């Protein structure tokens, strides 16, 4: 039931995810942060099989951190995404694969470009201007296709995201009540209210 959206704008990436943790038909928690900050300029929204998600996200978080400590500079977003995809693809071919879908957004400080990667639990990866996972994708992608502008300033990007969330609220049978939205740009990661 997790819903996540992400989109690229002029020098930034917005990553949004709902904050519900549900089990069967019960909402267990409504303030769960499902976006990990992997490095000063890297975000990862994760969704999928409960349990797998947190386990996998923490594994990724700690290994990206280890790389940063060992090598004095963090992995750039394209390399980090490639490594995460590889980890997921290797997991898929193991006895007990992780069923986790990801949106990886980052800002490359060496080339000054924002990057967004859509990754699913099969290890499919694609660099995209916008992306979504979960039921939200059914309502949001057409809106993003119509309204997304890669050159738009942050306010416009957030307005586009707002449209998607409103549509989900209007049409989806079970709508999440809250979203967490994080932005990554040249100044790093910050949370914004929507």
């Amino acid at each position: 039931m997790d819903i996540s959206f992400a989109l690229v704008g002029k020098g930034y990436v917005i990553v949004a995810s709902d904050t519900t943790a549900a089990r069967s038909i019960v909402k267990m928690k409504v303030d769960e942060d499902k976006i990990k900050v992997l490095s000063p300029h890297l975000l990862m929204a994760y969704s999928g099989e409960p349990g797998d998600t947190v386990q996998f996200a923490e594994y990724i978080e700690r290994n990206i951190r280890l790389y940063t400590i060992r090598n004095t500079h963090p992995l750039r977003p394209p390399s980090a995404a490639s490594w995460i995809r590889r980890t997921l693809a290797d997991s898929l071919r193991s006895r007990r694969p992780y069923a986790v879908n990801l949106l990886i957004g980052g800002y490359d400080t060496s080339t000054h470009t924002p990057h967004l990667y859509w990754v699913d639990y099969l290890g499919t990866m694609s660099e995209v201007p916008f992306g979504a996972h979960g039921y939200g994708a059914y309502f949001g992608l057409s809106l993003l296709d119509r309204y997304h502008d890669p050159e738009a300033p942050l306010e416009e990007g957030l307005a586009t995201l707002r449209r998607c969330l409103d549509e989900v609220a209007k049409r989806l049978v079970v709508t999440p009540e809250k979203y967490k939205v994080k932005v990554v740009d040249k100044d790093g990661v910050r949370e914004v209210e929507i």
Partner: protein
Amino acid sequence: MHARQSPIDAYALGWDASTRSVQLKVLRALPSTSYSIMARRYDSRTTIFSPEGRLYQIEYAMEAISHAGTVLGVLSKDGVVLAAEKKVTGKLLDMSGSKEGGYGGSGEKIFMLNSNVVAGVAGITADANSLVNYARQAAQRHLYMYNEDIPVELLAQRLCDLKQGYTQYGGLRPFGVSLLYAGYDPHYQFQLYHSDPSGNYSGWKATCIGANNGTATSLLKQEYKEDISVEDAIELVLRTMSKTMDSTTLGSEKLEFATLTLDADKKPKAKVYKPAEIDALLQKHGLAKKEEDTASA
């Protein structure tokens, strides 16, 4: 001659070079008798410290390198330049393969480690070949895992981890090889690193390994200018090389040469010069014939 001049370090890693030169001064200051006896007692094993706290085999390996052909590297804003003196030469040596083969050069001292790193080696060639092979594998492993060219410092670290292992795990001989890495990555742009048999590495603006490295380094120290261009770096390298090498004439049979620059797409482009290109380059800088350049300097 291997005591290095004070390092012109680029990335605050020069400390190890200066510590080493202090260490080697101690080596020379010791009375010859005690030195040789001590050395003999403790030099058979690479991993045993002498009572003065030294590893003789490692020092001998470095000594061996200071007799090898000179390798010279200069870093500039828009590229890195490497030149190497070939030792294995002669009228009867069949060089026909080196004219066209591979990516150019005769492949004795300058090697491509990855599309963004070229290395010059000084020391035992067989050891160097083994290290080059290891480096290429390490670079490909990184490409496989991260889908990017390996950062230059990381590649130097990989090799140094291997070399360091031979100073600690018993029974084996250390690699008798020093390397200069000329590379590019998006993190720190163009870079020049040096690594020695002990597993130390350091970043440089201009440096030299092998025979006469002291003379060459002091020449480089005098002549090197901040924000030098690649063209000027090429000239500096050739001029320094012609002054340092023992032979009177400079030609493609004694010299290997490579540059690393960026192409039109801002991707690193390594060029290992072919013999004909080296001769043309020497001609261009007026260093092809005699040592008139040395006289004028």
